[in-house]
């Protein structure tokens, strides 16, 4: 079902009724409801406060979701506004934050937005239409429905973390009088929910429900209705609608259950709910309302209003999907003797369960934690929890936790495992049924409802359900996890080595305080002002540019977490990690919204996003690493990157990093350089003192180096490049050398001068001289011949033929047998492969020209020392 979102037809907005109140200060009138009449639709849509609506946004397919708090207009009646409470869609949450969720978000999931700084006043013209929002318990699975008109709220999002949202926040206000009073029998949450919407008599609901009604009308409706309401023959129209809805949902969820419970059960256990009074128990067999698993999704209605369906722990059909419900039975006071029977049965089977529980709990600590927390909560509600339930409680809860975590494979395993348990349990259930119906008290003790479980086969139901394929697991390639854990560093040298690895992120970045401060204040001011800007950072490799920016971002993120500054997005792209500069758009878009698009499309979307005003916009901080790689002939990528921050509504801060200081002048055309602006910063290579400090701070009191050794390393590196990476690598190598050389017991175990010297030699000394020393006799002679020929010619280049003449002469001089031309060519090629000589392509044979790649002095030195 597609939204008919954009008002392609004329829409008219007007207030309905008289203003409720008048605010003298602001000169605004509050209204009770708003009428939206759309051309072509017979009935206008009515919006009243506390209703959930869709608001036009950037993305036509995913309009914003909000709840109306207040409707008001100004005196003249020109301005019609609404104050709303925002909800955030999955697509609006930054991808990086979605991970906090710890599971796959449901496409129809929305989050109650609790962030700050967000304009909650909208023009009523932007309101599209009402939408249904349902609150779900955080542990409840999503109903398997593809109905696009229903959103589900589980959690709230304050731009930093997800929290469990109070159901009252979402739904309470729109709850009319208790639905249970309208339905004589206990009904599921779905029914109450849809009922209330029906009783609200809002035109919009009618519209939407009617539409759905048409879509879902099936031949089985009448029969179904009869079954549903045995005691009440007269059903008002809205009820029909709601129950139809119910049924639709029902079938889908049943299906989900079928999928989740592994082998098809020959006698599936179906449950019926009846009110507690015994009078209702007699008609049970002909027409009770079957408690459908789907209803579980809705069981988060406040307990006081909800006719909570209570299911036995052993119930088969619900077990995989609804853990929150499963744990219920244990927490409930056993009032009925029948239950005691079951409890006894329970204790018999408990060893098995306990084993399973411990097995699983050892697998997943987080699950344990959560379950224990829930148990604590339940303890508050109900003290009469027996020991048995403990184990089972855990047992029941764990799988759901896994489900949340999206560990599909493990799940399947568990599914099978538990299916085995289930069959045992099923027998128990049957026994229980044989004696008497089971009564349970729900958590809320004012209202007591019972449930009667009767296992019943319902083939019709099964036939209706088509097989829905499992939603494909998101395909991201990943390296498998290691099967064995890593070994921890054993001694002080290993510890030092681990700390000195470039990848280990230090607690703080020493020696870049000034730069840190500059970048921090730059970005912070932009975020606070809600403006945009560019900054260019340059410096040779290994001077901490990227690390400093990341550090700034960490600090800003922290500041945002503690509400010092508004929240912001941080996106990072790296020119080196893209095959094509235009991929930058794709990556930015993907990081920003999670969408995938072709470069052109992505550029268009980003352009739209940054150029148009939108409610609820956060500042975006974009880090562009290796900027010079984004160069294209027309430079349009760079142009766009620097142009967006200058847009009024963009709120984009761009930090660019490259190696050369004069990059803007060198490669950028004027209009690009001008947009980049003059906010530049250059990172100087580290001085030896800074390098020393860096190593010291990394080592952090792990005493592995002698003072002098550190100084030597840092002085050497500072003199050569000032590259901190090099410095760390040398130190690591020195620890290795030290480790291998500590065979003699007299050594202190510290890395000393000699080790560092060795490491330095290894890394900095050129191998040419040793290579020449180790070359074979003929190769050495050939090098000498080359030099002799160069001297003769007075040039730095000669053909092989010329050199070979010299070579023959030298051979005779040395008393060696002269070699053949092919052999000489082979010698020459070998030297060329090592790049001691530079050669022309070998097909030229004797005519190829030869050059030395080393200085003549080096060659002579190496040969003389021989």
């Amino acid at each position, binding site marked *: 079902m597609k939204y008919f979102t954009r008002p392609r037809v004329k829409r008219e907005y007007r207030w309905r009724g008289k203003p409720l109140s008048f605010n003298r200060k602001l000169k605004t009138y509050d209204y009770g409801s708003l009428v939206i009449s759309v051309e072509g639709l017979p009935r206008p849509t009515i919006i009243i406060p506390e209703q959930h609506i869709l608001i036009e946004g950037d993305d036509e397919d995913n309009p914003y979701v909000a709840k109306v708090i207040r409707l008001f207009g100004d005196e003249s009646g020109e301005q019609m506004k609404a104050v709303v409470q925002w909800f955030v869609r999955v697509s609006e949450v930054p991808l990086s934050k979605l991970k906090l969720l710890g599971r796959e978000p449901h496409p129809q999931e929305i989050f109650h937005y609790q962030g700050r700084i967000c304009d909650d006043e909208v023009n009523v013209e932007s309101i599209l239409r009402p939408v249904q929002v349902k609150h779900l318990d955080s542990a409840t699975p999503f109903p398997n429905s593809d109905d696009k008109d229903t959103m589900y709220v589980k959690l709230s999002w304050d731009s930093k973390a997800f929290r469990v949202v109070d159901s009252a926040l979402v739904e309470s206000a729109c709850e009319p009088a208790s639905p249970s009073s309208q339905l004589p029998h206990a009904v599921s949450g779905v029914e109450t929910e849809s009922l209330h919407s029906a009783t609200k008599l809002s035109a919009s609901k009618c519209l939407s429900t009617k539409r759905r009604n048409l879509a879902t009308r099936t031949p089985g409706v009448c029969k179904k209705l009869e079954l549903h309401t045995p005691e009440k023959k007269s059903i008002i129209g809205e009820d029909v609608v709601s129950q139809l809805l119910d049924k639709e949902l029902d079938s889908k969820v049943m299906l989900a259950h079928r999928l989740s419970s592994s082998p098809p059960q020959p006698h599936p256990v179906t449950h019926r709910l009846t009110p507690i009074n015994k009078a209702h128990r007699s008609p049970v067999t002909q027409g009770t309302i079957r408690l459908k698993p789907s209803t579980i999704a809705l069981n988060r209605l406040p307990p006081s209003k909800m006719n909570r369906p209570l299911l036995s722990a052993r119930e088969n059909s619900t077990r995989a999907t609804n853990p929150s419900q499963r744990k219920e039975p244990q927490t409930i006071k056993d009032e009925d003797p029948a239950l005691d029977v079951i409890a006894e049965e329970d204790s018999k089977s408990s060893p098995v369960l306990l084993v399973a529980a411990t097995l699983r709990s050892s697998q997943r600590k987080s699950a344990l934690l959560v379950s224990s927390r829930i148990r604590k909560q339940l303890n508050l509600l109900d003290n009469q929890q027996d020991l048995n339930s403990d184990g089972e409680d855990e047992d029941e809860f764990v799988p759901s936790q896994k489900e949340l975590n999206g560990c599909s494979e493990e799940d399947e395993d568990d599914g099978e495992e538990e299916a085995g348990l289930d069959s045992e349990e099923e027998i128990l259930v049957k026994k229980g049924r044989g004696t008497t119906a089971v009564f349970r008290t729900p958590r809320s003790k004012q209202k007591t409802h019972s449930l009667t479980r009767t296992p019943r086969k319902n083939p019709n139901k099964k036939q209706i359900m088509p097989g829905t394929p499992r939603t494909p697991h998101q395909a991201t390639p990943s*390296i498998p996890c290691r099967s064995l854990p890593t070994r921890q560093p054993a001694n002080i040298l290993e510890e030092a080595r681990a700390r000195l690895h470039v990848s280990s992120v230090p607690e703080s970045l020493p020696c870049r305080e000034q730069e840190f401060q500059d970048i921090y204040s730059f970005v912070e001011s932009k975020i606070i002002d809600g403006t945009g800007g560019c900054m260019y950072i340059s410096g040779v490799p290994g001077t901490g540019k990227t690390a400093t920016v990341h550090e700034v971002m960490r600090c800003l993120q922290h500041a945002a977490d503690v509400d010092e500054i508004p929240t912001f997005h941080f996106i990072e792209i790296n020119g080196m990690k893209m095959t094509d500069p235009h991929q930058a758009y794709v990556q930015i878009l993907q990081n920003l919204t999670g969408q995938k698009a072709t470069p052109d499309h992505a550029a268009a979307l980003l352009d739209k996003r940054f150029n148009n005003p939108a409610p609820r916009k956060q500042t975006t901080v974009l880090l562009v690493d290796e900027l010079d790689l984004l160069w294209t002939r027309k430079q349009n990528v760079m142009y766009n990157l620097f142009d967006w921050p200058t847009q009024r509504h963009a709120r984009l801060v761009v930090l660019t990093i490259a190696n050369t200081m004069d990059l803007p002048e060198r490669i950028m055309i004027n209009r690009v350089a001008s947009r980049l602006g003059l906010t530049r910063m250059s990172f100087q290579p580290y001085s030896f003192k800074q390098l020393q400090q860096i190593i010291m701070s990394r080592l952090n009191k792990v005493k592995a180096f002698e003072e002098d050794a550190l100084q030597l390393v840092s002085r050497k590196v500072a003199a050569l490049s000032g590259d901190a990476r090099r410095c760390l690598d040398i130190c690591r190598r020195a620890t290795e050398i030290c480790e291998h050389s500590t065979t003699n017991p007299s050594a202190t175990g510290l890395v000393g001068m000699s080790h560092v010297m060795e490491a330095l030699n290894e890394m900095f000394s050129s191998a040419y001289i040793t*290579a020449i020393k180790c070359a074979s006799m003929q190769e050495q002679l050939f090098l000498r011949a080359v030099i002799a020929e160069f001297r003769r010619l007075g040039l730095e280049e000669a053909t092989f033929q010329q050199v070979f003449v010299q070579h023959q002469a030298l051979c005779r001089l040395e008393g060696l047998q002269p070699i053949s031309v092919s052999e000489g060519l082979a010698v020459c090629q070998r030297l060329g492969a090592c790049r001691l000589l530079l050669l022309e392509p070998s097909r030229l044979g004797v005519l190829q020209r030869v050059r030395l790649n080393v200085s003549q002095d080096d060659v002579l030195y190496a040969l003389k020392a021989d």
Partner: protein
Amino acid sequence: MSKRKVKDVHRPIGECITQVQQILRERFCHQQLPDRPEGLEAQYKHLLELLRRSAIQGESNSVLIVGPRGAGKTMLLQCVLRDLLQEKEAQKNLLQVHLNGLLQTDDRIALKEITRQLNLENVVGDKVFVSVQTEYYEQILENKTAEKSPGDRSSSRPVLFVLDEFDLFAHHKNQTLLYNLFDVSQSAQTPVAVVGVTCRLDVLELLEKRVKSRFSHRQIHLLSSFGFSEYLQTVRTQLSLPDDFTDRGFAQDWNSSIQTLCEDKSVEEALQRHFNSSKDFRSLHMLLMLCLSRVSVSKPSIKPADLLDASRLCLCDAKANMLHGLSILELCLIIAMKHLNDVYEGEPFNLQMVHNEFKKFLQRKSNSMYNFEQPVVMKAFEHLQQLELIRPVDGSSAKTQREFQLMRLMLDHSQIMEALQKYPQCPTDVKQWAMSAFG
């Protein structure tokens, strides 16, 4: 004593020879790994430690193995890997990716290959093949972290990248692959160990500065610094039969014959000559292989003469050998070219000049030769060009007539003279013409 031993001794000689051939061929041709890398203990230890740390402690490392061809770079790496994988802990963890610069000629091919070797293709599916142009560095190299918390150094399996012919990877556009590999190795992502194998000593100068900065600058140099005595020892061990050879008696005979072979003066000289020429083990294997192929049932040991023959075969000049197969006319043309080269000091010549020179020789000195038709001479000339004994000067285009196309001789004087000495039934006047200073 025991019956079995007696039985052993009486193995038929043919069977023994077959086994000898098999064992030694495995050594020379299949690059069978030695038990321990001789003379490379320090490098072996260094590399083994490094890779072990990557495999077991999840430490990221990068290292280059540099050394001339045939110095044992790959042998060292394979030995290290073999010994590393014997440790259970490493074997379970380590994933390997082997790339070769000659095969993976650009980054896209390399990425495909990485995906294939890491068995990620089933996950990425046809995406890799459909839209390779969209970058998959993120997915293949970085993905590993995407799903995990930053402290995942300990959780994901280490990957060993072996880049053979490392220098060729440095010629890829922007060195993207190297940048990404080294970047991963320097950041707290999936532990990777990047081992580059190359024979270029200046390989670091090929790296772009930001790539270079990310490389750890560890280089393991394999410079064959051994002397002749070690070389001789290697020859002996390479030819010797192992102790567990089925026929003990035969093995003892064989080994003692090898011993005497190596002590032979002429053999030592020949080996010395080889050693002087190159310390490459591959060329040594070639030489020994030639000796081995002469071993048969009738001649169950390697004689010094075999080795000398093989050595002569290895060292002989390829071009001079080719001259032996030429006709007298072609040889005469070559000699004419040599004289032209002498006169004009290496300036290029064309067919007409060569033919004129040849005709001069015929008029003045020759009594055994007679003139050939122009087309015949032309044909001979073209044959020489096909053999690449002469090649056209680069600049001269194909537009010029073939007779006037400028050519250069690809032979050295010594090669021509050597060939003439050995040429069967070469007319004396031709020989004299060749040896005379001026045509």
